[in-house]
């Protein structure tokens, strides 16, 4: 028997959700296998995961809370992925956004919220954007691969954050812990409805705003169209006289600004100060989300929530089954690989054929016999 592949002439319509569900199921099987290998109850572990993630209201609210930075970072990287620019640097841009917000909060601490909040936001957006523009500039000027440079800048960004909280911005009252002083109340985003919605804060509002802006930008503006057209390659861009270099700068700048926005919301709303525990890998999860959602805004929102819930569920597994935190990353990886592999079947169909031996054949082959 021989497996043969054919490119589909028509896009897969109703079969596509089936493909995704199968991929998801397969990734769960992989995870169960991993649990079994680690000597933990496989099915029981997954049950804990699901109960931990979706079983209680506070877990769902926690997932929603975690989905905010993931969603914003994911929109940012999706923008650059649209034109095949691979911005892996959301994590670093997120860190710089947090640094920017902290700088404004500490410098203009006496100002009222209406002045202070915009200042924090602005400096976060600017620093995040600048951090994204570095790999863009390196790529355009020196031909440096942006995957490598943006990835490496993540570590630099985190080190910048740590340098500040271990040094210049260290809180004198922190007993030696690396953290900035707590922000003045005017610099802290308040909660929406503390009694009912838990820790959920007004930063949530940024998500629909950013999502709508993303959608409108891509579908209704000329630049958005030019971006998608550039995704087909630099050669097409040159043919159609698209402003390729400008667009690279634009997507990397905007992507950095979105990640910076996420960073400022995270520092201001959930921690109320800058500290290294802020960096939990939202910027990397965002890349997985963007891919799984195929760069579309609604699926990005949905997937960001799912992967955030996964994080919450894994926390429950850690508590109940003493499973290492890295299991969350393994799950993320398994889902990503299975879905990406599954997407192969959206473009190709597979069929079984009788193998044809290479040895000389005396008898004519079946098709030829009919001819």
């Amino acid at each position: 028997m021989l497996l043969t592949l054919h490119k589909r002439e028509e896009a897969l319509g109703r079969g596509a959700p089936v493909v995704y569900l199968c991929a998801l199921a397969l990734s769960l099987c992989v995870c169960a296998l991993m649990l079994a290998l680690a000597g933990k109850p496989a099915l029981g572990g997954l049950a804990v995961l699901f109960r931990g993630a979706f079983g209680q209201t506070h877990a769902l609210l926690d997932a929603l809370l975690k989905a905010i930075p993931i969603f914003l970072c994911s929109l940012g990287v999706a923008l650059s992925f649209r034109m095949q620019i691979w911005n892996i640097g959301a994590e670093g841009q997120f860190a710089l956004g947090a640094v920017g917000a902290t700088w404004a909060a500490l410098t203009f601490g006496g100002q009222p919220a209406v002045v202070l909040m915009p200042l924090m936001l602005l400096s976060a957006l600017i620093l995040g954007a600048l951090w994204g523009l570095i790999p863009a500039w390196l790529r355009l000027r020196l031909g440096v691969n942006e995957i490598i440079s943006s990835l490496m800048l993540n570590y630099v960004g985190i080190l910048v954050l740590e340098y500040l909280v271990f040094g210049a911005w260290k809180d004198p009252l922190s007993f030696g812990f690396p953290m900035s002083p707590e922000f003045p109340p005017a610099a802290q985003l308040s909660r929406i409805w503390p009694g009912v919605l838990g820790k959920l804060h007004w930063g949530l509002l940024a998500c629909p705003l950013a999502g709508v802006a993303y959608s409108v930008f891509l579908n209704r503006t000329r630049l958005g169209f030019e971006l998608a057209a550039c995704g087909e390659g630099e050669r097409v861009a040159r043919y159609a006289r698209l402003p390729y270099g400008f667009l690279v700068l634009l997507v990397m700048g905007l992507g950095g600004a979105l990640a910076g926005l996420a960073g400022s919301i995270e520092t201001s709303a959930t921690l109320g100060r800058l500290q290294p525990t802020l960096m939990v890998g939202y910027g990397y999860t965002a890349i997985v989300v963007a891919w799984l959602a195929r760069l579309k805004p609604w699926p990005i929102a949905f997937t960001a929530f799912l992967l955030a819930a996964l994080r919450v569920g894994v926390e429950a597994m850690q508590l109940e089954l003493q499973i290492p935190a890295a299991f969350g990353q393994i799950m993320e990886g398994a889902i990503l690989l299975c879905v990406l592999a599954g997407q192969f079947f959206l473009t190709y169909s597979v069929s079984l054929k009788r193998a044809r031996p290479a040895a000389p054949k005396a008898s004519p082959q079946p098709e030829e016999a009919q001819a």
Partner: protein
Amino acid sequence: MRNSLDLHDPDIGPVDVLPLVRLAGVTKRFGHVVANDCISLSIMPGRIKALLGENGAGKSTLMAMLAGRFMPDEGHIEVAGKRMAFSSSRQAIAAGIGMVYQHFMLVEDMSVAENVLLGQEGGFVLDPKAMRATVAELAARFGLAIDPAARVGDLSMGERQRVEILKLLHRKSHVLIFDEPTAVLTPGETEALFEALRNMSAQGKAIVFISHKLEEVLSVADEIAVLRKGRIEGEFLASEVSSPADLARRMVGRDVLLTVEREPVEPGPLVLSVRNLSMQGAGGALLDDVSFDLRQGEVLGVLGVGGNGQQQLVETVCGLIRPESGQLDLLGHNWDKFYEHHDWDGALAWVPEDRSGLATCRALDLTDNLLLTTREGFSRGIWLDRARARKAAQEIVLAHNVQPGRIDLQAWQLSGGNLQKFVLGREMRRHPRLLVAEQPTQGLDIAATEAVWQLLLKARQSTGVLLVTGDLTEALLLSDRILVLYRGRVMGLFPASDKAQVERIGSMMAGLS
């Protein structure tokens, strides 16, 4: 067995020797395109067979089938009289058929001897000295000068090619196929390669040499098969070829199958003026002192065998390459000024050779592909009016009968002919005064070809058309004047009605003035 096709043309090769490889009525289709159409060829031991043809003529597909990369849709391959069906290149190699690709497949960090014997070591323990001796002996036998101990990464392209050849020889290949082997070589290395080819064929190997360069084919081949549009156009002994011009004409086609109505159009103002345009490449001049004018209302056919400077000329005219030396004026402005204030409408339109991947984006639908070059016409400020663009795309689809008539299809879902009609329709919406059309009917079926020709002739009423083509029929049918390019030089520039000059086009294309 199927009814046998008569392959033994008595004129070709010694009849008493059995062919090493025989292709019998081999056909290969990709979608609607027939890449190889019922091709029959015999490859004889001790002979060098050249496969001559333009880009897209089907040479590489044919050889890929021999090398086991594709299976023929119809027909079959015989090796030493036995019918074979290769489903992988491994099987082809086992049957003694080896191919030297344009891109070498070597491990740069390994020595020549290690590369040659890679996967053929025959045991767990390696003996570098014996390996080097084996390779040195093999190289000496076939006259391939190489140091078996040298690191491949340090070698020149010509030397790397020798390593590839040695790999095949070591695997006891009887048939060696070379795909455009001289493309990466310097003239000196080319001569050395030809010497090695003669040497190998003298020792009984069958050589297949794929090329579109006439002079090379004539200097090295014993037999020449001309491939055009997927068919064998003719097969000759090299000694019988009296005029290279004839070979060139066969390569680009001389048969006028179709006619189109041409109404005379009064020439208008000058739209393109090229003066002494030259461009240097690594291997010599790519464009050499090219000068010509083009007026509105006229089609200028730029004719030549592929790779003789057409690409550089088009990319310069269309703004991708800034002219190095010489003067290029578009619509009365010099190149810099024209491209500084490039206007999408009423200026220049370009229908490139690569219609899916350059002229269109494969994964965008027809509306977006319309917007690709006309987006300025559908935008107000920063906004894009997609609804209006959809209507315009629908108009193009209707006006030019673009099948299957749906604008929500992505470009890759259209056949080449329909996509080309759409591209032409789109470019004409830009009201160009200068239209550059590059190989506009390559790979199209007859109906689509005719439609494209009609469109181009209609376009000429309002524009000057620079038609770059390798197809003589097309050039003669459409052009008012013809310019022949050879190695970046203008070999001739004359009215298409000049019978005497038209007769000489073949020799001009072959570089014989």
